[in-house]
């Protein structure tokens, strides 16, 4: 009963806020007809037209948004692939099986990548590793963010695998299944349940992290806001637009994540 009441209250509040915002927008648009002569409102309307309508500048934001999403998706995919590989090596290390040199390499990789800022890694990959070739900057950025994300995803997946009760492995082995089969058929599915919310968080973090791609002149969403600012010298509206777009996407993803977690929890009868 209380849950339903709070749900209705939320909807009513949202509708009221939306209506107030809508009235404000209408006032700004029709301020002449309403006989208003407030300087700040007029500046607001001029700035809005300069920032988004002139030269179809809103398109810069859309293109930037597209690039940001593209980089995020590519980096997350790469990050998960790298993370899985690294996590497996770390899990093997945990149970005592060390593959000569690979384990060492993985540990050094994790230390270096986690110990340096992602911006610096981006610059190193762009100016040093790809120093003599002309390569797509979106790919370079995705590679840099993917490598960085992989180091953190490795920890997430490793923790997820090790969080599965030891009893599961013991049960599987005592039923006569090999280590490999137990891992794949019994441990991994449960590990994935542990890991998915944290991976989703990583996706959201990556989306915001890509904002520094502008350091190598990638025309992402943040950079698009910079570009509008460099032409109109108005900071308020472009930055507000960029903030709003990031916020909406993150809120949408968080909503998805909550729904996902709810579905995953269905199989927990505790």
């Amino acid at each position, binding site marked *: 009963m209380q849950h339903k009441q709070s749900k209705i209250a939320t909807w009513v509040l949202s509708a009221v806020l939306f209506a107030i915002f809508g009235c404000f927008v209408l006032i700004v648009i029709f301020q002449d007809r309403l006989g208003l002569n407030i300087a700040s409102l007029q500046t607001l309307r001029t700035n809005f037209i300069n920032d988004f309508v002139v030269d179809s500048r809103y398109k810069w934001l859309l293109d930037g948004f597209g690039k940001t999403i593209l980089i995020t998706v590519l980096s997350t995919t790469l990050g998960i692939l790298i993370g899985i590989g690294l996590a497996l090596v770390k899990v093997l290390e945990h149970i005592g099986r060390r593959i000569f040199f690979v384990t060492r390499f993985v540990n050094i990789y994790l230390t270096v990548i986690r110990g340096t800022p992602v911006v610096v890694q981006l610059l190193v990959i762009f100016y040093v590793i790809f120093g003599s070739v002309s*390569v797509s900057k979106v790919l370079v950025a995705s590679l840099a963010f993917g490598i960085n994300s992989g180091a953190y995803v490795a920890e997430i997946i490793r923790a997820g695998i090790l969080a599965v009760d030891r009893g599961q492995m013991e049960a599987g082995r005592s039923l006569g299944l090999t280590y490999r089969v137990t891992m794949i058929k019994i441990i991994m599915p449960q590990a994935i349940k542990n890991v998915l919310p944290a991976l989703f968080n990583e996706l959201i973090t990556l989306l915001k992290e890509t904002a520094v791609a502008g*350091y190598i002149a990638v025309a992402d969403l943040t950079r698009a806001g*910079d570009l509008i600012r*460099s032409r109109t010298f*108005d900071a308020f509206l472009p930055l507000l637009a960029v903030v709003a777009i990031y916020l909406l996407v993150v809120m949408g993803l968080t909503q998805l994540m909550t729904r996902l977690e709810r579905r995953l929890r269905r199989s927990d009868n505790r």
Partner: protein
Amino acid sequence: MKKISKILAIFVIVSMMLVLAGCAGTASVTTTTEDESIKIGSLADLDGKIIGVQMGTTGDILASDEVKAKSVERYTQYVDVITSLKQKKVDCVIMDRDTANAFLKTNTDLVSLDVGFEPEQYAVAVKKGDSALQAVVNEVIAAMKADGSLTASFKAHEDQKGAAPDLNTSAKGGDLIVGTNAGFPPYEYMNGDTAVGVDMDIMAQVAKKLDKKLVIENMAFDGLITALVSGKINAIAAGMTASDERKVNVDFSDIYVDALQVVVIRAGSKK
């Protein structure tokens, strides 16, 4: 055994990175004339090329509006743009002539071309309506032109080894906060950890005249006008062209130097 394998692993990784860095370095140094497929000789040749610029500068506006470039790469500072040009990541750069010459001194594998862009003039920007500061700046500029100290300043900063200006730290009249974008020699560049240059010398004279302490705020070029309009800084001395678009938001002092946008290309790209 463990310690040995650890040392071995670190050694291999470090040597791999050095090899990678070495390959990258040497490859970018040998820009031979034969394998250069980009050839630029005039304004028309800029069409369809990848142009590097610093965001918010006149070069950026020219590349975006007056040229049918394949793409315009907007970097935050000229060092990055020049590095990208040397590494063949961009085909050419549109930038101010004086700064181009300063960079060309240390980068002999680059050349500059005058493709006939409209000449421009630099001025100091003040907040709209700040006629008091504008008048003082104009006086200083006129005086420096008359007694030759402006030319002397250009000469002193020619090789980017000029001295820091007198910040007038003992002044009683408050602070004169000047915004700039160091990285634009000879107008402003870093000497150690202080911003020095022709623009700094001019503003030091203005500060002395106003009996104020000179405070230099170094920031990204495209953030300067926004900072001025919001009151974070009192003036902009950053080799800024007094363009009509900018005059909408700020007031400019008198012109203190004539300038020109040129195209910088790799030596092998010259037609």
